[in-house]
C-alpha cells in the first residue's frame, strides 16, 4: 500500500465520526432545535460503546451500545428544551458537562485496557479496483454507515413527505402547528436521531479511531460538528464535504507532528480549532445568505396554544 493510500485511509477514519455526527445534528437543526449537547452525547456514546464491546466481546454490540447511549442521553436534552422549554444553549452545556462527568466516571475502569477493534469489511471484487478499491471498499462498518446516512438523510429531507414536514417545522413552528403538524413529537424524534448519530460517532472514536478509552477523548469534536453544520448551510452533501475537510486537517496535522515538521506540536494541534473559526467566519459574514439558509425557527422556544 502506498503512502498516499495509507494517508487516505487515516483521513477517512478521522472524517467519518464528524460526518456521522454532523448529519444527525443537521436533521435536528433542520427541525429547529439547536443541540449544543452533541459533545456530551458523543462522549457518552464512546464510553458506552467501549464498555459494551468489552463486556460482550463484540465490537458490533459496542456500536449498538454507543447508538443507544447517545439516543437516550439526547432524550434528556429533548425533555428540557421541548417539554420544559428551557434555554437551548444552557441545556446543551449542561448535557455536555454531565456527559463528560458521567462518562469519566463510567470509564475509569477502562483506562489503559486494550480495546476491541472493529475490523474492516472487505467487499469482494470492488476492493480489487486499483488505488480507490483498497481505500474505499476495505473499511469498517462505520464508514459504510456514514455513506448510508448521507444518502438516507438527503432522501428523507428532500424527497419524503415527513422530511418536508420537518423542514416546515424548522421554517415556522407556529405555522406548522396551525396546520396540525405534530411539532414537538417530530422534534423529539429529530433530536433522538441526532443523539443516536452522535453516539455512533463516539462509538467510532473508541472502537476504530483509537480503539481505547481515554477521558474526554472527543476533544471538542462535538463542537466542531456544530460548526460543520453551519458551514454546510444545512445541506447534507456539503456536510459530507466539510466533514472530510475537517477530518483532513485533523489528521494531517498529526502526520505533520509525527513527521517532524519544524512547527511545534501544540501549534499544529491548534489547526482544527483555528480552521473551524476561519470557516465559520467565511460562511457567516454575509448576513443575507446566512438569513436565507438558516432554518428560521432554529433555537426559538415553542409553546403551543391549547
Amino acid at each position, binding site marked *: 500500500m502506498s503512502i498516499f493510500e495509507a494517508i487516505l485511509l487515516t483521513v477517512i477514519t478521522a472524517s467519518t465520526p464528524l460526518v456521522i455526527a454532523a448529519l444527525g445534528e443537521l436533521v435536528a437543526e433542520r427541525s429547529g432545535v439547536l443541540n449544543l449537547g452533541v459533545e456530551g452525547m458523543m462522549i457518552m456514546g464512546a464510553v458506552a460503546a467501549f464498555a459494551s464491546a468489552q463486556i460482550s466481546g463484540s465490537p458490533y454490540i459496542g456500536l449498538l451500545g454507543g447508538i443507544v447511549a447517545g439516543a437516550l442521553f439526547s432524550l*434528556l436534552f429533548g425533555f428540557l428544551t421541548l417539554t420544559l422549554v428551557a434555554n437551548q444553549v444552557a441545556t446543551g452545556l449542561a448535557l455536555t458537562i454531565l456527559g463528560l462527568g458521567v462518562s469519566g466516571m463510567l470509564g475509569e475502569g477502562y483506562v489503559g485496557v486494550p480495546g476491541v477493534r472493529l475490523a474492516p469489511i472487505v467487499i469482494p471484487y470492488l476492493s480489487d479496483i486499483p488505488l480507490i478499491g483498497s481505500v474505499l471498499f476495505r473499511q469498517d462498518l462505520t464508514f459504510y454507515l456514514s455513506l448510508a446516512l448521507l444518502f438516507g438523510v438527503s432522501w428523507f429531507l428532500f424527497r419524503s413527505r415527513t422530511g418536508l414536514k420537518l423542514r416546515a417545522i424548522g421554517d415556522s413552528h407556529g405555522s406548522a402547528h396551525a396546520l396540525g403538524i405534530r411539532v414537538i413529537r417530530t422534534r423529539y424524534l429529530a433530536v433522538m436521531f441526532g443523539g443516536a448519530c452522535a453516539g455512533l460517532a463516539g462509538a467510532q472514536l473508541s472502537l476504530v479511531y483509537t480503539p481505547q478509552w481515554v477521558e474526554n477523548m472527543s476533544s471538542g469534536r462535538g463542537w466542531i460538528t456544530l460548526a460543520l453544520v453551519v458551514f454546510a448551510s444545512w445541506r447534507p452533501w456539503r456536510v459530507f464535504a466539510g466533514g472530510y475537510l475537517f477530518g483532513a486537517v485533523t489528521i494531517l496535522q498529526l502526520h505533520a507532528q509525527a513527521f517532524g515538521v519544524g512547527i511545534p506540536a501544540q501549534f499544529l494541534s491548534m489547526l482544527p480549532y483555528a480552521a473551524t473559526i476561519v470557516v465559520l467566519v467565511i460562511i457567516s459574514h454575509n448576513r443575507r445568505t446566512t438569513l436565507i439558509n438558516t432554518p428560521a425557527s432554529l433555537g426559538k422556544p415553542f409553546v403551543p396554544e391549547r
Partner: protein
Amino acid sequence: MRIELEKRPQASKLYGFVSPLLALALTLIAGAIMFAILGKNPVEALDAFFLEPLLEVWSLHELAVKAAPLIMIGVGLAVCYRSNNWNIGAEGQFTIGAITGSILPIVFTEWHSPAVLPLMLVMGAIGGALFAAIPALLKAHFNTNEILTSLMLVYIAQLFLDWLIRGAWRNPQGFNFPESVPFPPEATLPAIWEESGRAHWAFVFAIVAALLVWFMLKYTLRGFEIVVLGQSERAGRFAGFSSKKMIWFSFLFSGALAGLAGISEVSGSIGHLQPAISPGYGFTAIIVAFLGRLNPLGIIASGLVLALTYLGGEAAQLSLGVSDKVTRVFQGLLLFFVLSCDTLIYYKIRIVWLRVRGGVA
C-alpha cells in the same frame, strides 16, 4: 399523558427564589441515588461531600479560594448572558489572563518593586479582555456565532500555554518539570488571614466585583441597557442603544474579569505558571451564573455552592474512595435541575392525563 405549559402573564417572583433551592434539593436527591448505585451509603456520602468541608476553618479558606474565581468569572458572564452574548470561552480568557499577568515575574525576573503585583493584575485583566475581543470582533463585524468561536479559542489558549511552559517559559533550574520559575513574594497575591488558612485577596476582589456589578445592573442606565438588549435587540435600538457596542462591552468586561481571575489564581493559589491551572473554572462559572439566576448577589451564593462541590469531590475521594469525577457529575446535574426548575418561573405546568374533548364524542 402530556405535559402542557401555560405562560404566566408575569414572571413569578416566588419561583424566582424557590427555583434554585428546589434545584439544589433535587440534585442532592439524585446524588444520593447515584451514591447508592455506586455501593456507598448515601447519607455518609452526602455528608462527606457537602457538610464535612464546612466544618474546619482551613477548609472554609479552601472554599474561599475555589469560590473566588468562580464568582469573579460568573459575575462577568452574568453581564454577557443578560445581554444575549453567549461567552462560553471564559476558560480561555482565564488562561490568557494568567499568561499575560505572569509576564513580569517570568520574563522580568530582576525587577523587584511593590508595583509588580498591581501591574500583574492589570495586565492579566487586559490579556483576558483582548482575548475576549476576538469573538466579539467576529460577532460584531462578521456575524459569526460567538458560542463556537469563543469555545474553539479555549482549546487554542490551552495549547498555547502548554507550548509556552514547555518551551520558552520553562524554569531552567526546574529539573525539567513543565513549570515556570516560582513567583517571588512581591508577585504573590497575599493571604487575607494568614494564620488560619490560605484564602487570598482574590476572594475580596470577587465580592467587590459582584457588588459593583449588582449596583450597575439594578440602578444604572448601563445596567438597563444590558437587560433591554438581552430581551429584544429591536427594542434596544428603539431606545437608542447599540447592540454592536454591547457585544464589545460585555465581552471585554467578562474577559477582563476572567483574566483577572486567572492571574489571581496563578499568583495566589499556585505560585507559578504550569499547564494545568484550572479545574474547569471557566465552565463551572457558567453553572454558577445560571444557578445564581444571573444576579451578582445570587452568584456569590452559587459560587460558594459550586466551590463546595469541588471540595466535596476531593473529600469523597479521600474518605469514601469515590472517583473525583463525581464533582463534574454533580455540577452537570445541578445545572440540569436549575434549568428544569426555572421553567416554573415563566410557566404554569399542567399534566394532562387524557385527551379531553370539548364536544360530545
